[in-house]
């Protein structure tokens, strides 16, 4: 039999129905829902008199629109409150497990799926959220869908799809000190562009990827969508199995061993052919900071804001010019000299326990620069409780950070956590689009370590020099 990629194996194992020239019907193993992209889908079911085909394969939580202030305070935005109540009512009506705002299992949908063990190798996972690609870190095929498709999956447990192409992104060699998973993915997007992955499922391979923890792998896969890809994935291995063992919704006991045996058959076969391969050397990567208004506009911390003549005349140069104007930056400015007003550590990209530990290690014993307002928003209530048990909250609070309740928060600013016009933020999130964190707000994407270091200094600093000094 011809060697297959991991994506092809998972795809083939999920074909429900296929016909030449038409999309293939693919079965869905796990459907994650949240308050923002589901209400119209449930309403559609009701209007058509349909039920949820597999409520047992569907879970719901609230993350996007909830405030991150104390859970004892009310949700003051009446429209958001209605949306939250609507999801609760829909979950009840259709028999779906629901982790509400007070549940210890509540959190960003892409943080709780893995944390609770729902996310497993070989699964097809969907959610009405583009960052569903996160779950591919476990060797799953996980993709974001729109609300009509959410309704389709609720009604049929399947999704019609044209088969995407495959791209291998191989990161060879060892990651230099101070360079993180976030820098790997920012480096990749800087090279292939924000549409470089359009139409593809990316499989990340190579020594630098293999040596990442599950948290790091999730960060890389999370931002596959920022490269335009349909999904990102990483082959499961001992790191994956060790992470999943004992998680409440993972297979238990003898079933776990049987599952591991099956999971071991998933990685791409030797000689499997990808439609495209990109090779990157880990030792060429640095800590990165985005300077513009899409995640491909990125520079190393040692670099400068680019000159306009570095871009092809035409749409790309116009786009860079517009971005610099929006960001209030002059070409040639050293990245290190960019001052910041706000720091956000959080989002489905970088809000897991390891991210918080890494940021706390930088912050410990230091103070946030007095002109900076800095906040930490754990990715889930579970992460928050674990961080508190480890004393990380106290490290952040002592330094002058705000320590908030779990949610998507200032990654997209749907809740009260937003930037004021003109404010400049070092953010561990995934999108630096115009207005993403608040109208007129200016976002620079960085790793948790870089965000923490910027909070202390009041401008960007090279985290590698910081760790050398100490």
């Amino acid at each position, binding site marked *: 039999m011809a060697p297959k990629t991991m994506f092809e194996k998972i795809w083939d194992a999920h074909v429900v129905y296929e016909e030449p020239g038409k999309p293939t019907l693919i079965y869905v193993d796990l459907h994650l829902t949240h308050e923002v992209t589901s209400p119209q889908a449930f309403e559609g079911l009701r209007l058509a008199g349909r039920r949820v085909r597999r409520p047992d394969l569907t879970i719901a939580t609230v993350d996007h629109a909830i405030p991150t202030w104390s859970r004892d305070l009310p949700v003051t935005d009446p429209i958001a409150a209605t949306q939250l109540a609507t999801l609760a009512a829909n979950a009840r009506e259709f028999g779906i497990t629901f982790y509400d705002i007070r549940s210890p299992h509540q959190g960003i949908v892409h943080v709780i799926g893995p944390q609770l063990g729902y996310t497993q190798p070989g699964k097809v996972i969907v959610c009405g959220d583009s960052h569903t690609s996160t779950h591919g870190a476990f060797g799953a095929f996980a993709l974001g*869908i729109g609300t009509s498709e959410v309704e389709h999956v609720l009604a049929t447990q*399947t999704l019609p799809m044209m088969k995407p192409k495959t791209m291998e992104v191989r990161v060879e060699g060892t990651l230099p000190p101070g360079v993180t998973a976030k820098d790997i993915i920012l480096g990749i997007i800087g090279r292939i562009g924000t549409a470089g992955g359009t139409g593809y499922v990316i499989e990340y391979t190579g020594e630098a990827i293999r040596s990442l923890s599950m948290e790091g792998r999730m960060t890389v896969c999370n931002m596959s969508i920022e490269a335009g890809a349909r999904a990102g994935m990483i082959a499961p291995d001992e790191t994956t199995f060790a992470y999943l063992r004992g998680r409440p919704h993972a297979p238990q006991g003898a079933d776990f061993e049987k599952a591991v045996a099956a999971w071991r058959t998933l990685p791409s076969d030797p000689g499997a052919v990808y439609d495209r391969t990109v090779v990157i050397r880990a030792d060429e990567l640095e800590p990165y900071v985005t300077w513009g208004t899409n995640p491909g506009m990125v520079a190393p911390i040692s670099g400068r804001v680019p000159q306009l003549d570095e871009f092809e005349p035409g749409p790309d140069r116009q786009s860079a010019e517009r971005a610099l104007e929006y960001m209030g930056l002059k070409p040639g400015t050293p990245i290190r000299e960019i001052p910041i007003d706000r720091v956000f550590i959080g989002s489905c990209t970088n809000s897991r326990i390891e991210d918080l530990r890494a940021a706390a290690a930088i912050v410990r014993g230091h103070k946030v620069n007095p002109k900076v307002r800095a906040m930490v928003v754990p990715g889930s209530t579970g992460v928050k409780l674990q961080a508190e048990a480890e004393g990380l909250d106290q490290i952040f609070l002592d330094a002058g950070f705000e320590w908030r309740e779990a949610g998507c928060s200032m990654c997209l600013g749907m809740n009260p956590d937003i930037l004021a016009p003109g404010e400049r933020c070092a953010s561990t999130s995934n999108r630096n689009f115009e207005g993403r964190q608040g109208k007129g707000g200016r976002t620079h994407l960085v790793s948790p370590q870089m965000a923490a270091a910027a909070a202390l200094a009041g401008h960007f600093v090279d985290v590698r020099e910081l760790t050398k000094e100490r």
Partner: protein
Amino acid sequence: MEPLRVVTGIVAPLNRPNVDTDQIVPKQFLKRIERTGYGPAAFYDWRYLEDGSDNPEFVLNKPAYRGASILVTGKNFGCGSSREHAPWALLEYGFRVIIAPSFADIFNNNCLQNGILTITLPEEQVQELIRLAEEQPGMKLTVDLEQQEIRGDGIQIPFEVDEFKRFRLLNGLDDIGLTLQHEDAIAAYEQRRPEYLTYGK
């Protein structure tokens, strides 16, 4: 979903690459639980001034482009968030056809689900259409999905479209109904689903 066969209308040029769905409909409008009411939110931050009045500098606000039903724009249109509120807003604004050098995948699917035809043309052809629409504000084109052709004054551009996508748009068909014709295949798959995917709870 309304069938789409031939659309004749004003062409609005939006000459920017990488227009993301945060620009098409900003987050503050995503808290609503309805499928309608997003038209006034389309391109909100570009379209309105601080006081809520129309920004006269924004191209779609120019009188000649009012009532446009065809949008011509830059590459990677619709990148970013999966929010279907973006095509809902564009449709309600009046767009039935979007022409660009490339589209982001999820946005492209979302358009199809809502009866919006996305047409991919080479960058030079798109730039030429943008130039014409800018030089002749209010210019009209006819987009004929049956003939797979864009027509106008001195313009005749054939376009490619996936056969199944064309069939669905021409007939205004909804996916769920089509899939439920394969109910037996879904039930059969559930019987043969790999066992390791059914462990755990």
